[in-house]
């Protein structure tokens, strides 16, 4: 599927990514119009994560909205940049030694599908925050949206990998790499929601806060038992 000549963004391709992931995945493997797919996927990734970031930052409001909107695309793209060589190597070792273009385009369209789902989750998340959701609930809702987006991206990736030996091991390995790298990059660029009880906005925080998983677990505890003593100011 070629982009419309002269167009910057191919909406039809985005529709295909959502409706027919297997076809798009096959196009990626066959290196069919990979450059156009990569370009459109990158645009989708930036736009989707930017708007989702803005919704997340709206919990604190003000400058935090813009900070979060700027940081989430960086997190997404940085994760993809770091994971790209690993995906290439893992696919090659598990009997799929495709070209770099094929692997990258498959990864990018998976990222585009991820971002499109985030884009779909943006209005509900914004509404939830606008209705006064707590910090922990907002954090968990955003994490849930991330989880859904991840599943959507995974379905496209799984179709793209095709049947063959080592498929499950490869998928598990790719998921682990993506989760580890994504967690670290997002942790490095926090905060996104802001810090409850703190009025001023900071671009990055350097406090030792125990790690991403620890913070998510604390949020679950606070949502389940709001009376539980917290460790925030």
């Amino acid at each position, binding site marked *: 599927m070629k982009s419309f000549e002269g167009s910057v963004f191919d909406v039809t391709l985005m529709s295909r990514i959502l409706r027919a992931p297997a076809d798009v995945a*096959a196009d990626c*493997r*066959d290196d069919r119009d990979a450059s156009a797919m990569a370009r459109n996927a990158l645009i989708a990734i930036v736009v989707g994560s930017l708007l989702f970031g803005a919704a997340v930052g709206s919990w604190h409001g003000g400058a935090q909205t813009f900070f979060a909107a700027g940081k989430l695309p960086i997190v997404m793209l940085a994760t993809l*940049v*770091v*994971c*790209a*060589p*690993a*995906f*290439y*190597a*893992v*696919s*090659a*070792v598990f*009997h*799929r*030694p*495709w*070209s*770099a273009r*094929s692997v990258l385009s498959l990864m990018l369209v998976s990222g585009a599908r991820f971002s499109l789902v985030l884009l779909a989750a943006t209005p509900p998340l914004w509404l939830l925050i606008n209705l006064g959701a707590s910090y922990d609930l907002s954090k968990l809702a955003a994490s849930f949206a991330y989880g859904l987006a991840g599943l959507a991206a995974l379905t496209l990736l799984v179709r793209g*990998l*095709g*049947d*063959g*030996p080592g498929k499950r091991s490869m998928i598990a*390995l790719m998921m682990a*790499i993506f989760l*580890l*790298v994504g967690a*670290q*990059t997002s942790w*490095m660029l926090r905060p996104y929601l802001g810090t409850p009880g703190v009025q001023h906005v900071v671009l990055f925080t350097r406090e030792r806060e125990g790690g991403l998983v620890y913070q998510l677990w604390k949020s679950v505890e606070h949502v389940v038992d709001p009376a539980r003593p917290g460790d925030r100011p």
Partner: protein
Amino acid sequence: MTAEPMTMPALSAPFPGAVPEPVDETPPANPGRPREEQGQEETFESFAHGLLEATRAESWVHEARRLGTGLGLAALFGGALGLRVGGVAIGSHALGVAAGLTAVAAVASPAFAIVLALVNAPISGFTLARATSGAVARAGLILGGLAPAAALYVVTVEDAITVSVVGFASLALAGAIGVSSFATDLRTPLAAASRDTRRWMTVAMPAFVLFAAVLALRVWWLALPVLTGAR
């Protein structure tokens, strides 16, 4: 389509006398054999394909190239680990990671060749060398791919334990993939061996794997102070 698990002979060198494949792309999920057009050299789908696929004909040069490339890629991972300290440590850690794989290829594999000869295994020196270079190539490719992620962790994580876990987990993964490749490449020739030989191999192969793992771990423990906390 899925099938119940069954023993599958290893994919080794393609059948020498087969009719050259027509000029066509290989099926997406498995590029399989290198494309070969009549009268031309073998062509490969990608860099990784050329690194991991064995050529139809025996070629020591190709195997040496695979071995060297695998070690080079592994060195990238070592260099990434050395970024935590910087300076000379980048080079020393690069050499250190490559040294672990070199030790297995240069020490463990020749020793295993003697064992194979003792048990009368129908494995030629070239076949063993090909399996070794294939294993190093796969391990090196995985380590090279994980180098950026390793660099991210060693530079941004303050906790030394996390860095050690990430580093050793990556090395263990690469080692497991290398060993799996080695065993798979030798499976087909061993299937044609006598019953006694195959019995001996049920002991010799795991022993070799254990020895190679301990040897590599020992070399890495000594050569990678970033992961062990030594200075």
